[in-house]
C-alpha cells in the first residue's frame, strides 16, 4: 500500500523535516499535516488515494516527531515556527498555493496558516479541531485550570511529567491507548491519575488498523520520544500571546470541517460539532462546509479512511471546478 511513497529529508526554516511524498510532481500539491501523537503514516490511505486521483501529495513528520528534527525547548514549537516550517516546504516544491488538510495539531497548524499566509492556501480541510478564535481576556492555561489537574492538556504542561508517565508503559501500549480510544469526553483523568493510565486499551483491535501498523508508530516514538510532540502543548500560552494580531479575524478561505460524531469533545450539549455548526463560528469562518461522520472517533482519517479520502478529494476538486 505504501510501497511507492518516497521519503526524503527537506531543509525548511532552519531544520530538517522528514517528508513522505507521492504522486506526479506536476499535479497540484496537497499538504497533509498529522496530529498528536502521530506521524505522516496516519495519512497513508489519503496519500495513496489522492495521489491516484490527480494530486501530488506531501506529508511531513512535523517538527519534534519521528525522523524530523526536534529542537529542545518548547519556545521553538509555536504556531509561528510550525507555519514557517510548512511555508518552507511549499517554497521547496515551488508551490504558490497549496491544498491543505490537517488533523488534530495539524489542523491547528492549518488554521494558523490561514492567518499568517492566506495567500498560500487554496483551500483547507480540518479534521477534528475547529478554529478557536482568541479570547483576549482568557489565556489558555487559565481556561484549562477550570477543568482541573486531570485535563490532559494541563498534565502535558510540566516538562518531564507526561514523559515519565508514558515511560511506565511500553511504546506499543502507549500508541494503542491513544489510537484506539473511543472516549468522547474532554479527556479529564480522575484525581491523582495520569491520563495515560486512565486511557484504556481495548481487548481486540478494531478492523481499521493492524498490530503491525501500530508497531510502525511505536518504533518511531521509541526512537524519538514524546518531548517534541508535548512541546506543542507547552507553547499554547505563547501561541495565544503571538496570535494577538488576528484578534477578531475572519477566515474567508474555503474550508471544510470533518469530524466523527464520537470524537473527543463531542460528548454532551456543548460539544465541538455543535460549536462548528453554530452562528458564532459561521461569522468567523463564513466559507465553511461541515461533515459529521457517524460512529467516527478521533483518529478519523484512519478509522473512516475511505469516507475521509472522498470528502477531501471532492472538496479540493470542487475548488478546481472538477466534478466526478
Amino acid at each position, binding site marked *: 500500500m505504501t510501497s511507492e511513497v518516497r521519503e526524503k529529508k527537506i531543509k525548511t*526554516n*532552519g531544520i530538517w523535516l522528514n517528508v513522505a511524498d507521492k504522486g506526479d510532481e506536476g499535479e497540484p500539491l496537497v499538504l497533509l499535516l498529522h496530529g498528536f501523537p502521530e506521524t505522516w503514516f496516519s495519512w497513508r490511505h489519503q496519500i495513496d488515494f489522492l495521489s491516484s486521483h490527480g494530486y501530488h501529495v506531501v506529508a511531513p513528520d512535523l517538527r519534534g516527531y519521528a525522523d524530523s528534527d526536534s529542537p529542545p525547548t518548547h519556545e*521553538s514549537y*509555536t504556531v*509561528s*515556527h510550525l*507555519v*514557517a516550517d*510548512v*511555508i*518552507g516546504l511549499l*517554497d521547496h516544491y515551488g508551490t504558490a498555493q497549496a491544498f491543505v488538510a490537517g488533523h488534530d495539531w495539524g489542523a491547528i497548524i492549518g488554521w494558523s*496558516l490561514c492567518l*499568517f*499566509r492566506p*495567500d498560500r492556501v487554496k483551500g483547507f480541510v480540518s479534521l477534528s479541531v475547529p478554529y478557536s478564535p482568541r479570547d*483576549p481576556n482568557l489565556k489558555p492555561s487559565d481556561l484549562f485550570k477550570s477543568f482541573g489537574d486531570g485535563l490532559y492538556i494541563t498534565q502535558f504542561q510540566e516538562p518531564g511529567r507526561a514523559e515519565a508517565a508514558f515511560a511506565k508503559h511500553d511504546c506499543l501500549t502507549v500508541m494503542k491507548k491513544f489510537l484506539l480510544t473511543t472516549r468522547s469526553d474532554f479527556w479529564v483523568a480522575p484525581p491523582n491519575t495520569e491520563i495515560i493510565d486512565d486511557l484504556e486499551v481495548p481487548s481486540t483491535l478494531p478492523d481499521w488498523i493492524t498490530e503491525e501498523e501500530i508497531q510502525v508508530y511505536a518504533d518511531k516514538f521509541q526512537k524519538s520520544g514524546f518531548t517534541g510532540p508535548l512541546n506543542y502543548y507547552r507553547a499554547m500560552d505563547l501561541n495565544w*500571546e*503571538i*496570535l*494577538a*494580531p*488576528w*484578534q*477578531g*479575524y*475572519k477566515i474567508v478561505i474555503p474550508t471544510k470541517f470533518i469530524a466523527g460524531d464520537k470524537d473527543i469533545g463531542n460528548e454532551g450539549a456543548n460539544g465541538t460539532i455543535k460549536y462548528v455548526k453554530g452562528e458564532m463560528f459561521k461569522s468567523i469562518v463564513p466559507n465553511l462546509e461541515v461533515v459529521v461522520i457517524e460512529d467516527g472517533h478521533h483518529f478519523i482519517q484512519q478509522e473512516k479512511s475511505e469516507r475521509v479520502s472522498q470528502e477531501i478529494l471532492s472538496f479540493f476538486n470542487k475548488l478546481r471546478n472538477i466534478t466526478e
Partner: protein
Amino acid sequence: MDLTFTHRFVKVNGINMHFAEKTPSFTDNGASRPPPVILFLHGFPELWYTWRHQMAALSSLGYRTIAPDLRGYGDTEAPESADAYTSLHVVGDLIGLIDAVVGGDREKVFVVGHDWGAVIAWHLCLLRPDRVKALVNMSVVFEPWNLKRKPISMFKSFYGDDYYICRFQKNGINILQEYGEIEAEFAKVGTERVLLEMLTYRNPGPILLPKGKSYDDPVSLPSWLTEYDVKYYVSKYEKSGFTGPVNYYRNMDRTWEMMGAFSNAQVKVPVKFIIGDQDLTYHIPRTKKYIHDGRFKSHVPLLDEVVVLKGVGHFLHEERPDEISKHIHDYFLTF
C-alpha cells in the same frame, strides 16, 4: 498651527494604551461619511509627540489622526516581561487600537511610520494587510526575511560589540529592581543628555556606544527641536524609563524567529517611502543601491514612490514637517 490634542486611553491586547488624537473640526462634505483615519507610529527614542506637526496639518485637511505611545513608551503600559515586545505583540496592540477607534466594520486605515514605527508598520502590512489602506513609511526600508540573517549576530559581525543595538541586548535580571546594562549606563549619563544625543545625532555612520564614552561635549539644539520639546520628552522618559523601548531591540531575534513564515513574502500594501540623504539608515552599506536599483520595489511591488530629501537627517518629519505633511496628504489623496 493648532497644537491641541485629545488624549485617550484604551485597553488593548492586555495593556492600557495611551494615544493622542486630533480630528477635523469640520465635516468635510456634511455627509455621514467618517473622516479617513491615519495611524502614526513613532520610533526610538520618541513618543506620539513626534507627530504633532503632521497631526495638526492633516487633521485640518480632513483626516482623523491617531498617534499612540507604543507599548513600553510614555503613558502606555510597559509589560514587565522582557519577552512581551516582539512585533507580534505590538501589532496585536495596534489591531486592538484600530478596532477600538474605527469600530466594528473592520475597515482599513492609513498608516505612517518612522524608525521603529516603520519596522512595526512593515510587519503590520505582512501580518494584517487587510487592515492597511496605504502606508507612508520613513527612514527604514523593508527587507525580506532571511534565514541567514539572524539580527543580532548580523549586527555584531557588521559593526562590532559597541554597536548600539548590540549594547542594548543585555537584559536585567529583574526589570523592576535592577536595570539592564544599558539602562544603568543611561541613568549615569542622565535622561536629558541621552535623549539629546539621540535626537541630535547627525553622523551618517552607525551609532557606536563604547563603554566609557564621554558625554561631556556640549550639545546644541537643532532648529527643529525646542527647549519645550526636549522638556516634554524628558518628562515622559524620566517617568517611564528606557527599558520598555530598549526591549524592542532585545526581541529582534525572537521576532525574526517568529516571522519565518514570511520568508519570500512581499509587502502587498501601497507604499510611499521617504528618507533623508543624511539619515544614518541611508548610509547603511548597500542601502542606496537597494532602494534605487529595483530590489526594494521587487519586495514591495506596490511601492509607488521613493522620495529622498536632500540635506535632511533621521528625524525628517520633525526637520521638514510641512514637506512631510504634504507628501502624506498628496499620497493618501490618491486613494
